[in-house]
């Protein structure tokens, strides 16, 4: 009987703990003003990509066809797969690189660079 009472008590606590929360919409990147004032060179962005991504994402066998072995190939991939790249690399839900998402500041910078049309 004690066991059943304990289980019912635990169930009551669990039900009492129920809430319904939803995360806010993912950040769409830096505000236009912030981004406009930033000068982010392609070399800086590609340096980050080389440090964190090209070990796997390089060559013909790159996962998902995401070959970042040159700046141009990286640009071409982002142009054709911008939503996917934003979600997986620079959004709050980023799951790439697999060992841990890039820092928030770096992600903001890449986001800004893409938003400005990936300038040199």
């Amino acid at each position, binding site marked *: 009987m004690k066991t059943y009472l304990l289980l019912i008590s635990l169930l009551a606590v669990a039900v009492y703990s129920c809430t319904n*929360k939803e995360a806010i919409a993912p950040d769409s990147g830096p505000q236009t003003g912030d981004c406009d004032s930033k000068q982010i060179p392609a070399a800086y962005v590609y340096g980050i990509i080389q440090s964190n991504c090209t070990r796997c994402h390089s060559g013909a066998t790159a*996962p998902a066809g995401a070959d970042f072995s040159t700046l141009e190939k990286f640009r071409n991939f982002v142009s054709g797969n911008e939503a996917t790249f934003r979600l997986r690399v620079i959004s709050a839900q980023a799951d790439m690189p697999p060992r841990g998402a890039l820092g*928030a500041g770096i992600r903001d910078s890449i986001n800004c660079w893409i938003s400005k049309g990936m300038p040199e």
Partner: protein
Amino acid sequence: MRILPLLFACCSLSMVCRAQDDLSKMFEDSTGHRPVIGTFKSTRIIMGHSNETLKKHELDFRVAHRFGDAGGEFGGGKTAFGLDNSTDIRIAFEYGISDDLMVGISRAKGSGDLSQIFEGLAKYRLLKQTTDNHIPVSVSLFGNVTVSTMTSNDALASASHFDEFTDRMTYVGQVIIARKFADLVSLTLSPTYIHRNRVGYMDMNNMFALGGSGRIKLSKRLAFIAEYYYPFRNQASKDYYKSLGVKFYNPLGAGLEIETGGHVFSVNFTNSTAILENQFIGETKSSWLQGQFRWGFNISRRFSLFGKRDWKK
């Protein structure tokens, strides 16, 4: 005269055989309807629960493991077809409080929005199918609560950002309806409800799903098992995630169940990366057709506790 001991031995043996018949009556209930036993060999099928519970004072030590993608972009020869990676690992201790009620605790790595998960579970056998079809199906009730102990994500938009302790919790409630057909085939239907206290933007706090599974006995110790879940995710949520390049897939698993006396060993292939219902039903993003299926196994080792005390009673 030498034949007398032989006759005596034969008579004794026949009495033993009759005693075995009497033993079978132990399984009859008070109304004379004999319950069907062994609808499934284990408390789990592949990913989800079967209708079975542990016997009273039985301890079940379970280990479940899911490897990485066998094929697709992250699989193939370079990862030994997924063996180099593990997507989820679960270790559990489950215990039979009575023949119809079991409880358990587990720790899972987690694969989805949350990780580092502790789980508490309970399962109760409500109805037992009888051999004379007086009760045509077995019905069990399953429920669990999980708590993620991962570090809270700084980003407010992340599903793993926790303002309060309760944000770390998820729940599953399930009704498992099972029937065994002619000793060879067992089928289940499992209406399931999942509640997650905190979810990502446009994800669902409350989700219903319908599970189905089957077991086909191939030999005394070997069976083919399969399992499928259909989560009812709303269209707005599907559309939003599709716009981000994310597609959800329905979990599907198939495998072999091997019983080796005290152990039940299940070798399986699934597209879901997670082990807990709280995650694999609503968060499976990998597809069989893209090679994103994985090898996995469930090992169960049962121990009878307090056995001598029960025997004396």
